[in-house]
């Protein structure tokens, strides 16, 4: 099979409120940076794919505006997913695999500051049975954390450890928030947002953008690119009906690990898009790691740009493999409530 690799990644410094900067102004710097990193120009890009959510901007077809950030003058092959840009990368991967393109630019962007993120995310739920009840994402995450506690899989001490690990690891990532974690006593005394979740357990409201370039092996040789191979990639979704799911399992992830034949013993580092402290604990259990050993970038708890944070898991693993300290990495992107839709990508350094 054709080999395809990540050849560049750029992430904006994440802001809690990017203020007057609009989406185009967030996207353009990361696109320019990733092109500079790879010594490519827009004319080398065969396919462009973005990931964003029009509900975040509150305007229909808002993603089209984002295209002003790149050279969109025809002819251009371009696509968009109304999802995290990790899925835009997946679409681009398939395009390259099918021979339709050799080099693809992927970008994800989101400003959560202009609206009420909890309400907005409710509208992504099943529109007939769940969305009309307006459960917000923190309520639903709270249900999952409760299920884990009842199953004896989670304590508040674990959650505090996840919060501290994220704050500690985020020092590896200059784009992440600098979070001063609470002491255990302060943490246990914090007000609940949705029991057992406090504000410390939830990923912060974040504005930003990220961009990645992937290329086929032929294109890497032609343009002298230095790839980290995407060895395996796949995604799977769980039922949209929360009542049909056991929230203490992330069944798509275990299914995907079987399907893609991922051996956790061979994986050096893992980045997961766990957006709540209990999700960090759950994913660390599934990936058989300590809480401190996953999300060396700090993960979403230290900056969670909606529709880019999944792409960032791939970007961060790429960066870590690039630094030659590790050889195999697993990136885990999610979408939907309570880790419903999951994408796994296994990256390998050629060294």
């Amino acid at each position, binding site marked *: 099979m054709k080999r395809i690799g990540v050849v560049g990644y750029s992430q904006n410094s994440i802001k809690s409120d990017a*203020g*007057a*900067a*609009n*989406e*185009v*102004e967030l996207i*353009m710097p990361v*696109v320019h940076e990733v092109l500079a990193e790879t010594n490519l120009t*827009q004319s080398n890009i065969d396919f462009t794919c973005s990931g964003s959510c029009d*509900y975040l*901007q*509150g305007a229909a077809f808002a993603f089209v*505006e984002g*295209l*002003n*950030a*790149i*050279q*969109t*003058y025809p002819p251009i092959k371009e696509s968009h997913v109304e999802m995290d840009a990790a899925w835009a990368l997946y679409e681009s991967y398939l395009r390259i695999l099918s021979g339709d393109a050799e080099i693809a630019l992927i970008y994800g962007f989101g*400003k959560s*500051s*202009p*609206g*009420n993120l909890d*309400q*907005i995310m409710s*509208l992504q739920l099943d529109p007939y049975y769940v969305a*009309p009840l307006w459960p917000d994402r923190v309520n639903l995450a709270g249900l999952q954390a409760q299920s884990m506690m009842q199953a004896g899989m989670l304590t508040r001490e674990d959650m505090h450890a996840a919060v501290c690990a994220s704050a500690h690891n985020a020092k590896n990532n200059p784009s992440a928030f600098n979070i001063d974690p609470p002491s255990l006593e302060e943490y246990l005394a914090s007000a609940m947002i949705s029991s057992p979740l406090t504000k410390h357990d939830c990923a912060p409201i974040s504005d930003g953008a990220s961009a990645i370039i992937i290329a086929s092996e032929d294109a890497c040789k032609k343009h002298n690119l230095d790839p980290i191979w995407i060895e395996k990639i796949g995604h799977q979704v769980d039922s949209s009906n929360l009542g049909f799911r056991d929230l203490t399992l992330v069944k798509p992830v275990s299914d995907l690990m079987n399907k893609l034949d991922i051996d956790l013993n061979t994986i050096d580092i893992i980045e997961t898009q766990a957006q709540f402290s209990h999700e960090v604990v759950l994913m660390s259990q599934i990936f058989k790691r300590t809480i401190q050993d996953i999300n060396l970038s700090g993960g979403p708890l230290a900056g969670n740009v909606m529709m880019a944070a999944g792409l960032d898991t791939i970007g961060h693993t790429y960066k870590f493999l690039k630094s030659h300290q590790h050889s195999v990495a697993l990136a885990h992107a999610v979408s939907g409530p309570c880790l419903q839709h999951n994408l796994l990508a296994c990256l390998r350094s050629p060294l």
Partner: protein
Amino acid sequence: MNNSSEKDYFESLISLEYTHTAGSATTRFLEAVAEGKIVGQKCLRCSAVYVPPRGSCPRDGVPTSEEVTLTDRGCVESFTVVHIPIPGNPIEPPFVSAMIRLDGANISFLHLIQEIPVAEIRIGMRVEAVWKPQEEWTTSLENIKWFKPTGEPDIKPESLIFKPK
């Protein structure tokens, strides 16, 4: 049981509130419009002038970093006659919505044409802005009520085709 005239369902509206951000380029444009001025931005690579500016040149994928002050005169690039009333719109149909290309700009924007019979409006016709009284100005392109003919000779539509530098 419900009578057929009774609803057996409940209607509710979904409403979300946002703090919209125009972006720094468009914000600059809106601030200038509040003072009765029209500013665009120029791409330093291809020299295209965008108004209202969005802060980027989609042709080159670079920021449009130079501000350009434009006049409120231009021509009709294209137009359509609206016959169907739009709820809440105070203007009686038929009226004309036109793409106005200001002198010195390389893209057009949508505005109204008035003070001329609809049948006489044509592509290439020279127009100028009719502003609201200054005390009504806000940060909106609605400070211009509409465009009206200047009476100058028409321009050739071919001359509007952009040739990048």
